[in-house]
């Protein structure tokens, strides 16, 4: 019942946002908001696999970038984004599944897993950076090295390449995607598969002794995380454009910070953490005296040392305690 209410509230909020915000925000702010929403989806993907699957993936940006790049390359080649989107989702899910297979079936401990996923995204970053020049064209799409693909085509209505979505329509699509993905994640956690995944996170050995296939469940959750991150990449490609930055260390780091600040073990927390910190870094970017990396790094350290549980759980604990005192 609680899940149903949460999903209903989230979907209502998404619809309200999608209906209301384009009326009141300027175009520039709206495009920025679309970036925030796509990042929020990325945060949701990590919040799901880390908070509920106990899989510490430092390179969630790998699937984010692969989603974005696949979408851009396919859309340029097909001249139509209808098939580019499923292709991007398929590829990012498949890469996550392949990497997950090597990690989970190799029974690598979570610390090594963090390092391997981080290395994966860094290698992709270097690879994408080195793809300048004509020999790196895929079909008619140049990968463009450091500059990325500036002419990433925006989404169009299915099978109608001429009818491209305007930025405010992209925003609506993004917000609805975020709401639906949240609902999907909540629903998955309610299924038998989701419960087993959470049980594995709580006590891997016990779950295994009870006869559940730990490796397969982790793999499934990880692949779904790759799917969500890939979708986030597609949305991001729609409002900015794809470039190697999508794989970069600072993005990979930021995702972790969002989840950490928002609260591990919740799904809304990471999205809220993402929005707050995005707003903060956007603001810090306008200050010329402080480097945004410095600010992020200090925030990161502080949140590990001072608020290890994250904002949302800490806040709700505080609220519960205050309420408890009120009753007494």
């Amino acid at each position, binding site marked *: 019942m609680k899940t149903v209410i949460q999903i209903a509230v989230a979907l209502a909020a998404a619809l309200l946002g999608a209906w209301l915000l384009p009326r009141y925000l300027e175009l520039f702010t709206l495009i920025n908001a679309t970036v925030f929403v796509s990042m929020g989806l990325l945060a949701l993907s990590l919040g799901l696999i880390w908070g509920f699957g106990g899989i510490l993936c430092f390179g969630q940006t790998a699937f984010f970038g692969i989603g974005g790049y696949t979408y851009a390359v396919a859309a340029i080649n097909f001249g139509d984004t209808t098939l580019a989107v499923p292709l991007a989702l398929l590829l990012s899910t498949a890469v996550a599944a392949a990497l997950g297979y090597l990690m989970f079936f190799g029974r690598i401990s979570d610390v090594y897993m963090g390092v391997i996923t981080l*290395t994966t995204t*860094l290698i992709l970053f270097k690879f994408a950076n*080195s793809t300048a020049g004509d020999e790196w064209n895929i079909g008619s799409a140049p990968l463009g090295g450091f500059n990325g693909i500036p002419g990433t085509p925006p989404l169009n209505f299915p099978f109608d390449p001429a009818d491209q979505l305007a930025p405010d329509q992209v925003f609506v699509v993004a917000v609805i995607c975020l709401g639906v993905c949240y609902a999907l994640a909540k629903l998955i956690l309610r299924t038998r598969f989701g419960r087993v995944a959470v049980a594995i996170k709580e006590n891997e050995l016990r779950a295994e002794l009870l006869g559940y296939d730990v490796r397969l469940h982790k793999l499934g959750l990880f692949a779904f995380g790759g799917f969500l991150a890939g979708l986030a990449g597609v949305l991001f490609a729609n409002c900015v454009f794809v470039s190697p930055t999508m794989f970069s260390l600072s993005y990979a780091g930021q995702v972790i910070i969002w989840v950490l600040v928002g609260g591990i073990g919740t799904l809304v927390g990471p999205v809220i953490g993402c929005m707050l910190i995005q707003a903060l870094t956007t603001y810090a970017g306008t200050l010329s005296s*402080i*480097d945004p990396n*410095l600010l992020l790094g200090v925030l*990161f350290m502080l949140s590990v040392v001072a608020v290890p549980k994250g904002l949302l759980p800490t806040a709700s604990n505080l609220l519960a305690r205050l309420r408890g005192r009120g009753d007494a």
Partner: protein
Amino acid sequence: MDYAVVVALQIVSGVATLVIVSLGLAVVFGMMRVINLAHGEFLMLGGYTAILSYGHGINLWLSILLLPPIAVGLIGAVVERLLIRRLYGRMIDTMLATWGLSLAFIGGVTMLFGNSVTGISAPFGSFAVGRFHVAGYDLFLVAASVVMSLVIWVVLKFTPAGLIARGTMQNAEMAAALGVAPDRVYAMTFAAGAALSGLAGGLIAPVSGVLPTMGTAYIAKAFITVITGGAAMLTGTLVASGLLGTVSTVFTFLTTPVFGEVALLAVAILLLRLLPRGITGRFLRRAL
């Protein structure tokens, strides 16, 4: 024939570079089980120390061999005191906090020195092998990697300090009962690891150039090397460097440097699939 000699030299110097950039990390991870994601930035700070002191007219050898380990060792001691000490035993939190540290160092250095590449020209010039030229500094790096490994081995194996450090890492409570202060041993070990990273930064500064984000180029390789090496930190790091360095250099020769790195990663992931506890988890278990 000449070509074969050149390729062989490149492989040896590729392996040596991998050893140099990994040792500091191997000491901190192998001894303390602390994953220091700011390792790359310790290299970077070592590089900046070398560049700045050389720029102020200090002798080249002092600037790359002596000052970087001292400066970064001190920074490491401060970091241990302020950050790492609060998080012992919480492996994931340590990783996250040192990642924050790494971002903060990158941001801070960018603010201080700007986001541009500076460099020192490598000493020794080059010498001829038949039709080819080989940089003399590459051979110096090979020698440096051998000396660094030997010093670590001798210190850990034959000095009282090394014995106390190894004992504390094996059983901190027992060491404390015998009158050793584990806190101080941890602090010294972390500072020593940082000093090694600083030295590595000074050593590679003439070949790689120095910029705020240079650490990210090495961190992935260093980690993969240490983890592929497994439990025995020195032997593991040397064996893994030998293997991965060879693979990456051979692929660099066959294709491009980027594919050299991709091959390194791919081999490492496959190795971890076969030997999840690293090379020394299966072979050479009793080595140091």
